[in-house]
């Protein structure tokens, strides 16, 4: 309970800051929309082929925007020894981890809420019906991505060129999330049934749970100086 309360408190702080500055959200959103335009020039996205390519393209766009968010995740704590102050305050490190993870999940979710329908409009996909289930899959993908991403963002915090380093260490470890999210989306778009994606969905949920637990346990050491 205490953990939950502390998490919500920290999350509220981050959301409030974001609401005042609009830095991360705006850059992430415009980058996501920009990628849709780049995709349009890079691939021949005729209505016949677009359903086939949609899962890969969309998830790629979300991975890139998500990475953008992760590189900024601890930016607010870097100046003025704010991170040290946070660590000195009587707050569970696990709560800090959960709050940061949730914050990036919220940012990615907001971006996806706009970018995904935009994709449907821009490339005139035939059916809007699988969209809610698609949001669910993408949300689970976000959880896995942000959980591992937050740990690694904190790990690379004191490195030189950390914005460049983060994707390099993050993407190879993210293979299960990348693969299972894309396969889930593919199965859903092919048949319209969420049940067809079940084995991959289980793997994705398993990944989310494992790394969420590892993250809460290990975060003490991650932010330790």
């Amino acid at each position, binding site marked *: 309970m205490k953990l939950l309360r502390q998490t919500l408190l920290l999350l509220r702080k981050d959301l409030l800051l974001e609401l005042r500055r609009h830095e991360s959200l705006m850059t992430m959103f415009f980058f996501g929309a920009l990628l849709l335009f780049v995709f349009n020039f890079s691939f021949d996205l005729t209505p016949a082929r677009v359903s086939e390519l949609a899962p890969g393209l969309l998830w790629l766009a979300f991975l890139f925007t998500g990475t953008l968010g992760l590189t900024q995740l601890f930016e607010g704590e870097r100046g003025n020894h704010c991170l040290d102050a946070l660590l000195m305050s009587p707050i569970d490190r696990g709560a800090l981890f959960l709050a940061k993870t949730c914050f990036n999940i919220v940012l990615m979710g907001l971006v996806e809420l706009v970018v995904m329908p935009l994709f449907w409009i821009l490339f005139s996909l035939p059916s809007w019906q699988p969209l809610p289930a698609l949001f669910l899959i993408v949300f689970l993908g976000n959880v896995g991505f942000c959980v*591992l991403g937050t*740990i*690694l963002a904190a*790990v*690379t915090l*004191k*490195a*030189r*060129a*950390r914005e460049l*380093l983060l994707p*390099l*260490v993050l*993407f*190879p*470890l993210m*293979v*299960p999330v990348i*693969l*299972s999210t894309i*396969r889930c989306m593919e199965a859903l778009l092919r048949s319209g049934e969420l049940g067809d994606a079940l*084995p*991959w969905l289980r*793997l994705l949920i*398993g*990944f989310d749970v*494992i790394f969420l637990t*590892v993250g809460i346990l*290990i975060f003490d*050491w*991650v932010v*330790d*100086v």
Partner: protein
Amino acid sequence: MPQVTGKKRKGILGAATLVFIIAGLYWGLIKAPPDAYQGDSQRIMYLHIPSILTAYLSFFLVFLGSCLYLWKREKRDDNLAHAAAEIGVLFTALTIIEGSIWGRPTWGVWWTWDARLTLTAILLLIFIGYLMLRALVEDESRAASSAAILGIIGFLDIPLIHMSVYWWRTLHQPPSILRPDKVPWENIHPELLTALAINFVAFVLLYFYLLSHRLRLSEMREEIKARRMN
């Protein structure tokens, strides 16, 4: 009885490695018969399998060293993880190179996106990332604990990556020795198995020989730093 110093021990290890490598080469290239289907190109397996097994051993040592470092905070454990990661990357890269030399005549391609190939390539990328992280964090104890966390996460992630890429696709030869339906020595010619065993011992010895030198290098670096400080 004369005391066996570190230097002497390394000398003995080095000599044993050399003997086994020569024996392994002799057995693999001359004594063992060529494979019935693949001909002489199969002989590269005598290097390919031992190198990937030692690479796995290496990544396990990274995990072990990382856990011990976070627990006890001793520089020695961190040195072990660092050294093991470097040599592990070397052996994984060797495995991939040997595999593609073998794959070209056998499969007709240098590289294919098969599950095991992909898994090995991802392992290589993970531990290259690990070494880059080490290089880019200036503060030493900070670098050690960051790297330790990455080493642990990387190791824990391997089964998940394994599962996902296996579901995704499989083309690689199924294991020929450790098969559930037969006992090992019935599956392949005994000469081939001997060649493989000798090469495996050679690689493990080589591995520990390199590791001991790499650890000594870390120690020497620390000595120099300590002297400069004084």
